[in-house]
Structures are given as C-alpha cells and as structure tokens.
C-alpha cells in the first residue's frame, strides 16, 4: 500500500471545479433534468420524503445504522478483483472487477433497498411497494421487507414474470405479493406506472422503494447516495491495490443506479474517464434497443425530466434488450446531466456483444455475470484493448448471472 488519499498528489488539485457536478439543487434539478413531475396526490408524499431524508442524512447515527447493515447483512465491502486472464485477452489495460455480484441477493440493488427500508422504518410506514424488471430489485425489496416484518407488494410486467420465473418464486418465498401488470407493454415501465397508482391510493401507510436513480426528487438523490458506497470502496481499494486512482470506470446503465454509485465519488477526479454502457439491443440503427442517452431525447416520464425513448408524438417507445434489467425507456436524470456536461461518455453494447462477454467472463475467470453487467464487461474489454498496458480499468460487475442461465440457454437453443 504505497499511497492513500491524503498523500496522493492528484488529490485536491481540482478543487476549483468541485461545485461543477453538485446536484441536485434545492428543487431537485440536475441542470435542466430531474425535478418533481407527479400527480398532485403524490406531491405531499415526495415532499415529506425529501424532508425526512434531508434531516436523517445529516445525522451520523443514520449512516452508522446503515453501515452496520451493509457490513453484517449485505456482506460489504465487496472485493475489487484483478481479472488477470481477462486482462491478458485484451493485452491492454489491467481490468479490475468491482464485485457487487457477491452482495447478499446477488446484485447492487440491496445497497439501496437497505437504505430505503431504514427511511420507511423512520417514517413509520407499514407497507412497502416496489416495481421490478429483472426481479433483482423486487427480490432486494422483498428481502428487506421480510427482515423488517413489513407487508410487501411488488409490481412486475406480465412479460417479465414469464422471463424471470425464478426471481418471482424467490419474492413469493420471501413473503411478497407479486402483482402481474397486464397494461401497456407489460414490462418495467408499466410496472412503475402501476406502483405509482398504488402509491397514490395507499399513500398514508405505504413507502414506495424505487429501484433506480429515477423518479421524482428526492429519489434520484437518495438512491445515488445509497449506491455511492460502491465508488467510495472502489476508490480506496484502487489506491490500496495499485497505488493510484483508476484510469477508467465502466458500468452498465439501465436506470443507472450501479453506474452512478461507482461514478459519483470520482466525478471530481479529472484523470478518471467514465463510460456508461447502455443496452444496444439489436443495434442503435434499429428501433430495438434501450439506449435513451445514445439515441433518445429529453422528455418527462415517471416523475422526472430526462433522456427518453420517445416517438415524434411524445409516446414512450417499447424498448428491447436481452437483459430485463436494462429494458427501460428512461434513465436517471443525473446521467442526462453528466452526458450534457460531457463528464461521462455514454456508449452501447448490443445483445450479441453482451452475450459474448457473458461467456468470456464465465470461462476465463469463473464468474457468471448478470446479462446487465455483461454489457459493461463487453465494452470494458474493448476499451482495455485500446488502452495502454499498465493503465487500470474498473468494471462494475453489478450482479451475478444465476438468474439468467435459462435465458442464455434458450437463446442458444439448449434445453435445460
């Protein structure tokens, strides 16, 4: 361990730009994005949440309670692992993996649900609702609800229920009520609509755990704050293991919570380049993808202004991705802002590229990645090739792939 934060010459060098990426402002905006765009019935609820979070987040006791849960229940810190054989394939930059796949419940989602469950508890709510796409956030929500003895209801698109049957059963085992959403495109966005309807109806006793850095203020802020543990750990681990900050960070972006969690603690470190990898589906030159930052435009959906997949009439388009967790037409508003500020580069990996990276990581490192995370692995491997030997990349391995083996087998014509 040759260095630490206080002696690193890079630290403190860019203090003048420290305010540049500070968000949100007091009304919940990240530049032109974010804000509060919900029906009047829900305004009081989001304002109350903002107030409670503002108060609790200033109390050290709140963070101590959270840190204790993260250590003893989630299993943090998650390792930063040097992927030697993956590095050799690219013959370029060293590839490190931030192992969020090793968290309890198998993904980064639990960092957020543990935090929001604490908020629910402090607010005296007795019922939790959540939306889910791949089922990872639903499982993470059902898990914390079971632990706190709260009633839990998870909304899931009817099509996703079929795609992700094992996670549906996990949620049921955990005592959650899983509601099949049959409206619209029957996927994640429709599950979110239904959760918002439930919240408006049961606003008195219900806490809505949003699974990503989207939704009305203060969700993009508080989900980010809970996920920042990823980047804070990675920063310390990089310095401990390599003696310096990484040269590049790579994470997949659906709503963008694992990406913002990794990126945010590095935003002011100018030497660190960041890449958010969206779901390129069948290619950005087709309509079958889920890459609003690469190929969409700003609009308003689910409580915030952000880049969206929207058609000329302002209707939200149906998206496509091999991974249910990235199959969402919007993205967290802070990512939209970071795109416009050119602080983070947003790129895409196709279904095919992700699938190939899924196999590479499994065969070379003995780690089966989630299909979501496989998008980051795909782009990270390509990036490593273009970088010099001796440079370091951290790829966020946001989840494990056990939930996806049936999908992969089906796509490859293998009967289990």
């Amino acid at each position, binding site marked *: 361990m040759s260095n630490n934060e206080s002696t690193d010459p890079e630290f403190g060098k860019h203090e003048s730009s420290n305010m540049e990426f500070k968000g949100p402002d007091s009304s919940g905006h990240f530049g032109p994005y974010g804000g*509060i765009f919900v*029906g009047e019935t829900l*305004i009081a609820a989001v304002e109350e949440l903002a107030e409670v979070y503002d108060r609790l987040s200033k109390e050290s006791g709140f963070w101590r309670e959270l840190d204790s849960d993260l250590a003893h229940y989630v299993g943090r810190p998650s390792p930063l692992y040097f992927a030697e054989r993956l590095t050799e394939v690219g013959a370029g930059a060293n590839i490190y993996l931030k192992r969020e796949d090793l968290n309890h419940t198998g993904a980064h989602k639990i960092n957020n649900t543990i935090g929001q469950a604490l908020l629910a508890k402090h607010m005296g709510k007795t019922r939790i609702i959540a939306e889910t796409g791949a089922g990872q956030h639903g499982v993470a929500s059902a898990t914390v609800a079971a632990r706190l003895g709260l009633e839990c209801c998870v909304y899931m698109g009817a099509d996703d229920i079929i795609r992700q049957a094992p996670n549906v059963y996990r949620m049921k085992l955990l005592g959650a009520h899983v509601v099949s959403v049959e409206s619209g495109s029957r996927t994640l966005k429709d599950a979110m609509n239904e959760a918002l309807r439930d919240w408006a109806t049961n606003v008195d006793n219900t806490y809505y755990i949003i699974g990503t850095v989207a939704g009305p203020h203060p969700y993009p802020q508080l989900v980010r704050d809970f996920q920042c543990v990823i980047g804070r750990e990675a920063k310390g681990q990089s310095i401990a293991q390599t003696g310096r900050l990484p040269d590049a960070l790579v994470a997949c972006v659906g709503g963008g919570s694992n990406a913002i969690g990794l990126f945010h603690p590095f935003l002011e470190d100018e030497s660190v380049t960041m890449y958010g990898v969206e779901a390129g589906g069948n290619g950005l030159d087709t309509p079958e993808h889920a890459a609003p930052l690469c190929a969409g435009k700003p609009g308003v959906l689910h*409580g915030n*202004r952000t880049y969206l997949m929207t058609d000329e*009439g302002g*209707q939200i388009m149906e998206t496509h991705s091999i991974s249910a967790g990235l199959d969402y037409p919007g993205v967290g508003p802070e990512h939209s802002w970071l795109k416009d500020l050119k602080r983070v580069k947003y790129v895409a990996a196709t279904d095919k590229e992700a699938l190939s990276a899924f196999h590479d990581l499994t065969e070379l490192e003995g780690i089966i990645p989630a299909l979501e995370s496989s998008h980051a692995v795909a782009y990270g491997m390509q990036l490593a090739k273009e970088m010099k030997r001796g440079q370091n990349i951290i790829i966020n391995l946001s989840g494990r792939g056990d939930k996806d083996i049936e999908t992969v087998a089906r796509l490859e014509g293998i009967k289990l």
Partner: protein
Amino acid sequence: MSRIQLIAEQAKHNNAKLLIPYTVAGDPNIATSLSLMHELVAQGADIIELGIPFSDPSSDGPVIQRGVERALSKKTNLTEVFGLALAFRRQNKHTPIVLMGYLNPIEIMGYEKFANEMVAAGVDGVLIVDMPPAESEKLSGLLAERDIDLIFLVAPTTTPCRSKEIVQCTTGYLYYVSLKGVTGAALTDFDSVTKNITKLRELSDLPIVIGFGIKDADSARAMAELSDGIVIGSALVEKIAQLGDQESHEKSRISQTCEVIGLARQALNDIK
C-alpha cells in the same frame, strides 16, 4: 373574459352547476369522438375535457387506461387531438374545450408550438396531470399571453400552504380530486371532501369542480351540492368502450352512450 370564465359566470348567474364530461380524444376513433362531443353538449355538458392519449397514464385507473390504449391503437397523437378540437369548434362556438393529459407529448411538441396550436384549434384550457405549479412557469407564461386557462388539481393530500400556491397559479376553475387514488376509484370519504372544499373556498373565488370517482346521478348530485360542478370520466369512458371501433354509429347508440351525462344533468338541475 375566456370562454371558460364566461360559461362559469353564466352558471353562477343562473344558479346552475357545471357539468364536465371527460372523454379520451380518438377513443374509439376521431370521427366517433367528434359525434360524442356534440352529443355530450346536447345532453347538457357545459365544458368538455378532452384527454390527450399518452402511453403511460400513471394517474389513471384501468377504465381510462383502456380508453387511451384504444385511441393509441389508432395513432391518436396531439396533432390529431387538435384536429378533433378544431372540427368541433367549427360547429360549436360556445362550449369550452379543456385538454387533459400528461406532459411528455407537450414537451416533445414544444411549449410554444403547443400554445399556438391551442389558439388555432379553439381550445380554451389545459390540465397537465404530472406538471405541478413549480414546474409550470414557462408554459404558464405562454398560455397566459394567449388567454388560455391553466387548470391545476387539488388533492385530499394537498397541504394548506400548497393550496395557496396552486390557487395563485390557476385560472378557469379549480379541479378538486375527491379521493386518494386514480381516476375511476370508489368515492367513499364525503366528510373529507366537504371539509377540504370549505377550506378552498376561503382561498379562492374560482369555481371549484370535483372529479375522480363520480359514477352516476346520485354521486354527481352529492358532489355538486358541495361545489360549483363535477367531472365525469371513467363512467362515460366505460360506456364508450362498448361502442365498436367503426367510424360511424347510429344516432341512438351515440345518444345511449352519453346517457350517463344526461342523467347527471337532470340530477344537477334538481339541486336547489
């Protein structure tokens, strides 16, 4: 004086209640929507709320969601909604049209173009469910310059301090949401409605109308007794769902479909 203000003044003068049906533009198609609008007026509607179809209507219950899906299956976007409004306006100069919908289609069209199209189509007001006053400044200015009313919702969860802010941003009429929930849910808590309307009265001289959960003549009457008028949406859209999607319908079918409005009119007229 805007067309909405004029109608509201007349109603007040005649001691009458405002009856405001809501229908999704283009449900089941534009031609039928136009016939329905004229029939609604014939059966006693004072103002027509025209829903702008949006793929993600997160404040609406299942009945209106399905109406929106029917309209979207015919590719009814804002441009078609304005076409419908204009066609109605050519034949009816006095009944105000209020658009009701979600912000994204308006954002994508652009605020300025939207405001100009409203004027060109003879639309009188707009209510954007997911645009609270704090996010409305820019659009509000453009609409005010054109004498178009911007209507906001007040909910049972709205704090007194917030009600004051909403009242200041609203023109035309105030729309009180009778229940915690989505459109078409069951209305149960009459006491809270009475209490909240009384408080709103102290804050504003604007006409107050009540909507969400009004299903029939009885609930129409009960709510109208507490306010200046009522909105009926889901109960009408449910009837429209029974029409086929052919372009033209027999006069009697259209008239039957709108009967819920005619019955509400009678109930409202009975209030002394």
